[in-house]
């Protein structure tokens, strides 16, 4: 079962949330971030090239121009491969764990899997981000030493940064699955 809805992130950009219900014990949420805008790309390239041309007129060395082209290309490739995240996915599987995948614009995917035995809870937290107060969804991990303690807080959808309405949808679904987990104790 699959459906798609449109939300907005904290800066007002459009986000698309795709929900897939594979089975009662497995759900996937896929958030697509706004794409790289042509306007900002053109602006940055023009700025770099104008600066290089300015230096060229001062120094009369043509290496500066080729260096500027090289830097722009490398910078764009690096940005696409290491910085620009296209899609963030959260896959929650009952009694196995929670998996978070970030797909970059160049196609690279980076995945983190947290086993269900380490997950204490999934909550929505408030944070102060620059001049705003935002909400974010995070996974609380159990502390191996202290039974009621929390060893780590893992935020989810860090680069998409959706607003509260989107987070509530995801939160409700996750809690349904985690409720199964808490209902059936670990050892039979």
């Amino acid at each position, binding site marked *: 079962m699959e459906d798609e809805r449109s939300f907005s992130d904290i800066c007002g950009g459009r986000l698309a949330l795709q929900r897939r219900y*594979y*089975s*009662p*014990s*497995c759900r*996937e949420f896929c958030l697509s971030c706004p794409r790289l805008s042509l306007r900002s790309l053109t602006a940055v390239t023009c700025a770099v090239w104008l600066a290089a041309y300015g230096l060229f007129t001062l120094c009369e060395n043509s290496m500066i121009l080729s260096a500027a082209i090289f830097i722009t290309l490398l910078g764009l490739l690096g940005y696409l491969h290491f910085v620009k995240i296209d899609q963030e996915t959260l*896959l929650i*599987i*009952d*009694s*196995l764990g929670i*998996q978070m*995948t970030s797909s970059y614009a160049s196609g690279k995917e980076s*995945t*983190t*899997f947290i*086993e269900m*035995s*380490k997950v204490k809870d999934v909550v929505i937290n408030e944070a102060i981000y620059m001049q705003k107060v935002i909400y974010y969804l995070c996974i609380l991990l159990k502390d191996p030493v202290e039974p009621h303690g929390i060893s780590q807080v893992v935020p989810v959808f860090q680069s998409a940064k959706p607003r509260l309405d989107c987070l509530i949808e995801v939160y409700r679904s996750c809690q349904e699955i985690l409720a*199964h987990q808490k209902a*059936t104790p*670990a*050892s*039979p």
Partner: protein
Amino acid sequence: MVLKAFFPTCCMSADSGLLVGRWVPEQSSAVVLAVVHFPFIPVQVKELLAQVHQASRVGLTVLGTWCHRRQDAEEGLGHFLEGLGAIFSHEPWLQLSRERGGKLWSCKATCRQGPPGPAAPDEDQVMLVFYDQRKVLLSQLHPAAALPDHQAGDGMAGAEGLAVVFDTVARSEALFRSDRFDDGPVRLSHWQSEGVEASILAELAKRASGPVCALLACLLSLVSATSACRLFQLWPLSFICSKLSVCEQLRHRLEQLTLIFSTQKAETPAQLMRKANVLVSVLLDVTLGLALLSWLHGKDCIGQLAEALVPVADHVAEELQHLLQWLMGAPAGLKMNRALDQVLGRFFLYHLHLWISYIHLMSPFIERILWHVGLSACLGLTVALSILSDIIALLTFHIYCFYVYGARLYCLKICGLSSLWRLFRGKKWNVLRQRVDSCSYDLDQLFIGTLLFTILVFLLPTTALYYLVFTLLRLLVVTVQGLIHLLMDLINSLPLYSLGLRLCRPYRLAAGVKFRVLEHEAGGPLRLLMQINPLPYGRVVHTYRLPSCGCHPRHSWGSLCRKLFFGELIYPWRQRGDKQD
């Protein structure tokens, strides 16, 4: 809890049979290791399982049945398979089936004992997780789970979560030894290795490696014994050896070679990786060193270097002379105390003159020395770099001397000033109590003290300026040496074998797992594909980094500034076992 069945991808196309593997009750998961085909005799299957259990201490059982048939196949097979549940009793009994040529899977788990009802897992709640047996067998999880206790038998309480799957597969290697072409009593289907390619050279190398290692280990122990003999502990030699970074580097290399050629087999995977990393690092070092050697000897670089060395040293000395003349005049418009200025300036100029004469004395021998030193590059690039660093240290020895003189003078001055300042205020340093106490001085003590204090204060700018200039020069030399040491450290400690493994066989170094949901038909079980998530490069370097020489700067920036201000001497690298001055 949802029942998870870990099924190897290599068995997906196998014929019908029995599922053999391990059941983990705490996580309600069944790890299938192999499929036993018909015909078989139940007693022989049980014997095989017992054999494997003894060899590997993994509790294997028959977990259920696997049915791979056509859509219109006979129903008799189905009944037969159900009957098998009576022979091999196991709770819960798994029944996996797949349509031949189709994509329809079905998965059932039944509990014979216990009340049927909501507690029994029904069809919706069985998850099939496919895994690549070969990759899981060969991979190593980081951080390494606690090693299971080999004496605990079926205990294995150390591994948790998915590490149990990795552990089970890795320890059941005894089960995978049978080949599909073997004619044994029981036919198994599991991961088959494609066989090792036989090569005469590889076999010969394997046979020869034992005695060669033993011989080299003997030679190395001989070398280390001679280097540790009493002759080298005598004072002048031990002092020089501790100051030269070549000796440190050679010692480090000797330790590494001893590690590689030791006749003991590596026990843990970490030790094996360490050995491999050290071997690759030494090989790279020697290769780079030989390349440098061929370049040096090829184009007569040694001759050119030797010819250029003395003029360069002369040029540096001349520049220093100009600098001293400048200091003796009015440097940067500051007005110095003429008498002290002239004294210090002349003292340093004479020292410089001695140094230049020494260099000129040595100049005929330089080429030959350089040629012999260049030969040492065949021991490795790091050795050549350390020799370069030592040559720089020797050639700039006069700068070091100037720095020491300037620093000592400045330090004395600062000590005197601080003590006389206390006298000026009527206080005294109590050595017993390590604190400042008030003290009543006589009038003549106060008078002379104040006089000396004034003299020292007015002479402070001159001494401070000399100190500043020579400290800057010394710091420059130290920076150059530091960069060379950094490069040496990089070559020494980079784990190249691990990086290569991560590049070419990423499944060997696993940071974790990742899951992908496969096509889901309505009414069928949920199917997931478990893949290995490789370790990121940064963590590979961090985990497998080799220990380096240990010649690191020990000061933080704050303590460095403090030492510079008070004129204490700074020794940028402390060799092992050196005393603080």
